[in-house]
C-alpha cells in the first residue's frame, strides 16, 4: 500500500545517501539514549533559558511543513497547471517536516514516556494541546493526499473525487498549524519580545519564504541527480512566491524594529538590542542576529532581480541564503531571545552542547531519509507512468529535456 518496495531498489549513489543518513540517525539515537538516562542536563538549557535548540528547530520546521500550501493552493484551488509535477513533492516535504516537528518535541520532553497524558488529560486552554491536534491532523491529511494521488498516478487514472475536499481542507489547515505554533509564544504575558500580535503573520511570512526555497533546492537537486524535471515554469512560479514572502517577512521585521526602537520602552527594546545592536553590552546573540539580517538582505537583493531568479545558479544561491537566514532567525534567535533577559533581569548565555547538536542532527537526518525515500517512490511511480496512456489527471506528459 505504501509502495515502499520502490525505495529498496536504487543506484549506488542512492544507497550511499541512505547509508550516511542512517549513520547520522544512529548516532543521534545513541546520544538520545544518553539524554534519556542522564536527563536534559546534557543540553545547554538552564533554569533561565528553558527552551533551546530543540524547540527552535521545531518552530522552524512547522513553518517548512506549512509551506506546502504555497504549491497546493495555486495548483488545486486555482488550477495553475505548471505546478502539476511539483505538488506531490511539496506534500512529501510537508510530511517529512511535520514528522521532524513531532520528533523535536519528543526529544525535548523531560518525561517522554508520559507524552500520552496530553491526549488522556486534554486541557483545551493549552496551546500545546491544540498544536498536537493540528500537527497530527496535518500529518494525516498529507499522508492521505499523497497516498491517494500517487496510487492514482500509478494506475494511470484520475484520483477519486472525494480527495478534492480533503486537499482543500489542507490549505487552511496548513495556515492553522503555524498560527497555533505562533500562539504558543504570542499569548504569554511575561515574555515581552514574544507578546506581539504580529508573531503569527511573521511566522507565516518567513515560513512561506523558507519552505518553498527548500522545495526549489530539492527540485533542482532532483533534476541534477535523476533527470526528473518539474518544469521551468514551476520553479519560476515558486521563486516569485519566495520573493513576495521574503518581502513581506522583511517588512514585518522592520515593523517590529520601529515599534521597539521608537517607543524606547525597555521591555520592547531590550531584545532587539541584544539581538542586533549590542548596546546593552550582552553580545552572545549578536553574531546570530546580525548574520540573519545580513543574509536576509542579500537574499532579498538577489530575489528581487528577475535576471538572478531566471538564472538557476543564482536562484539556488538565493534560496540557500533565504533558508539559512530564516533558519537562524526562527530556529535560534526567536526562542533564545525570549528568555533573555529572564523575568528577574538575568542574562544567561545559552550554548547548545554536542549531544544536543547530535540529537538535532539525528532528527534532521530522519527528515532527510524520509524525503529521500518518498521522492524515490514518487519518481519510480512517475517513470512507470510515462508508459501509460494519457488519462491520469495529476501528471501531464513530461517535457522533453
Amino acid at each position: 500500500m505504501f509502495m515502499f518496495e520502490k525505495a529498496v531498489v536504487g543506484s549506488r549513489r542512492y544507497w550511499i545517501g541512505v547509508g550516511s543518513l542512517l549513520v547520522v540517525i544512529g548516532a543521534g539515537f545513541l546520544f538520545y539514549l544518553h539524554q534519556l538516562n542522564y536527563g536534559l542536563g546534557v543540553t545547554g538549557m538552564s533554569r533561565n533559558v528553558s527552551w533551546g535548540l530543540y524547540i527552535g528547530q521545531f518552530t522552524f520546521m512547522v513553518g517548512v511543513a506549512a509551506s506546502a500550501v504555497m504549491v497546493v493552493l495555486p495548483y488545486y484551488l486555482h488550477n495553475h497547471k505548471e505546478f502539476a509535477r511539483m505538488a506531490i513533492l511539496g506534500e512529501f516535504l510537508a510530511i517529512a517536516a511535520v514528522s521532524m516537528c513531532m520528533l523535536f518535541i519528543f526529544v525535548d520532553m523531560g518525561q517522554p514516556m508520559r507524552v500520552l497524558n496530553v491526549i488522556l488529560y486534554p486541557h483545551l486552554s493549552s496551546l500545546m494541546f491544540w498544536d498536537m491536534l493540528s500537527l497530527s491532523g496535518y500529518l494525516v491529511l498529507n499522508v492521505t493526499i499523497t497516498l491517494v494521488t500517487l496510487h492514482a498516478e500509478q494506475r494511470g487514472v484520475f484520483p477519486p473525487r472525494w480527495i478534492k475536499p480533503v486537499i482543500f481542507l489542507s490549505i487552511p489547515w496548513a495556515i492553522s498549524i503555524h498560527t497555533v505554533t505562533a500562539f504558543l509564544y504570542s499569548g504569554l504575558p511575561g515574555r515581552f519580545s514574544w507578546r506581539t500580535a504580529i508573531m503569527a503573520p511573521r511566522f507565516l511570512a518567513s515560513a512561506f519564504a523558507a519552505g518553498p526555497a527548500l522545495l526549489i533546492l530539492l527540485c533542482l537537486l532532483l533534476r541534477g541527480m535523476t533527470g526528473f524535471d518539474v518544469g521551468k515554469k514551476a520553479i519560476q512560479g515558486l521563486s516569485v512566491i519566495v520573493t513576495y514572502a521574503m518581502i513581506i517577512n522583511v517588512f514585518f521585521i522592520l515593523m517590529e524594529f520601529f515599534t521597539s526602537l521608537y517607543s524606547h520602552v525597555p521591555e520592547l527594546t531590550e531584545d532587539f538590542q541584544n539581538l542586533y545592536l549590542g548596546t546593552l553590552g550582552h553580545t552572545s546573540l549578536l553574531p546570530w542576529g546580525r548574520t540573519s539580517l545580513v543574509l536576509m538582505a542579500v537574499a532579498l537583493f538577489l530575489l528581487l532581480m528577475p535576471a538572478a531568479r531566471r538564472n538557476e545558479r543564482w536562484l539556488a544561491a538565493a534560496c540557500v541564503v533565504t533558508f539559512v537566514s530564516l533558519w537562524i532567525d526562527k530556529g535560534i534567535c526567536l526562542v533564545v531571545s525570549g528568555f533573555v533577559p529572564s523575568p528577574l533581569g538575568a542574562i544567561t548565555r545559552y550554548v547548545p552542547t554536542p549531544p544536543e547538536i547530535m540529537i538535532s542532527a539525528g532528527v534532521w537526518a530522519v527528515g532527510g531519509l524520509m524525503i529521500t525515500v518518498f521522492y524515490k517512490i514518487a519518481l519510480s511511480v512517475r517513470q512507470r507512468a510515462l508508459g501509460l496512456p494519457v488519462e491520469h489527471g495529476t501528471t501531464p506528459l513530461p517535457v522533453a529535456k
Partner: protein
Amino acid sequence: MKITRKRFLELSGACLVALSGREILALLDSPGPSQAGPASAGGPRKRWGMIIDTKKCAKEQGCTRCLEACNTTHNIPAFQNPAHRIEWIWEEPFEDLFPSYETPYLENSRKGEPTPVLCNHCDDPPCVRVCPTGATWKRTEDGIVMMDWHRCIGCRYCMAACPYGSRSFNWLDPRPYIKTLTADFPTRTKGVVEKCTFCSERLAKGQMPACVEACPEKALVFGDLNDPQSEIRKLLASQYTLRRKPELGTGPNVYYVV
C-alpha cells in the same frame, strides 16, 4: 443485511454524537483545569496569601532561614551548576523584584538587598492556562497553584509562561544532590517541573508553611485573604504593599511591605 454506505455513515455519526454527548456537555460546563474539586467539608473558599515584610527581613544580615527550612522540608537538591539549580523560595537583589519601579536613585540600604521571592500563587496563573496535561492547576478550595509530579511531561511550557521565574526544572536526577534526605516528603525525579506549593502538605495538617515558621523576625505572614478578620488582611489594610508585576493581570497573592 443490506445497508447503503450513506445510511451506515449516518448511523455511525449518530452513535458517535450520542456517546460523546455527555463528554461535550461536561466540557462546556467545566470552568477550566481547576477540576480538582473541594475536599474540605464545605465552608467558604479560602485564598491563601503571604506578606513579606522586607524591612523585618533585612534586620539580620545574611539570614537564610526560610530558604533552608523550605529546602530541607522538601528535599530540594543543591547543584553546583547554577544552570541546573532548583529554587522554590530564593533571594534576589531588591531592585530586580519591581522592574516597573526601577529608579536610578534607589535608597542606599536597599541596593542589592537580598529579598525572598517565590511562586505568587496568582489568581489568574498563566502557567495553569498553558499546561497541556493539567499537571499544574489552581485549587478551588484554597487558591493554591498545585503541582502533580506524576502527570508532568516536562514540556516546560509553564516555565516559559511564568512571568516571575518561579519554576525550576529537574535537568538531572536530584537524589545525589540532596544534602539531608527526609522521608516525610517525596523527592522529584528528573524531567519534571517543580515550584513552591505553599506547603500544602503542612496546611493539610494545620501547620504553617515551613518558611513562615522558620523566620525569626516574623517577616513572613501567611493567611486567608478571603477572611477580612485574618491577620494578613489587617496588615494589608494598615500599610502600603507592592506586588510583583501586577500590570500583567496575573493577580499575584504575595505582597511585599517595602
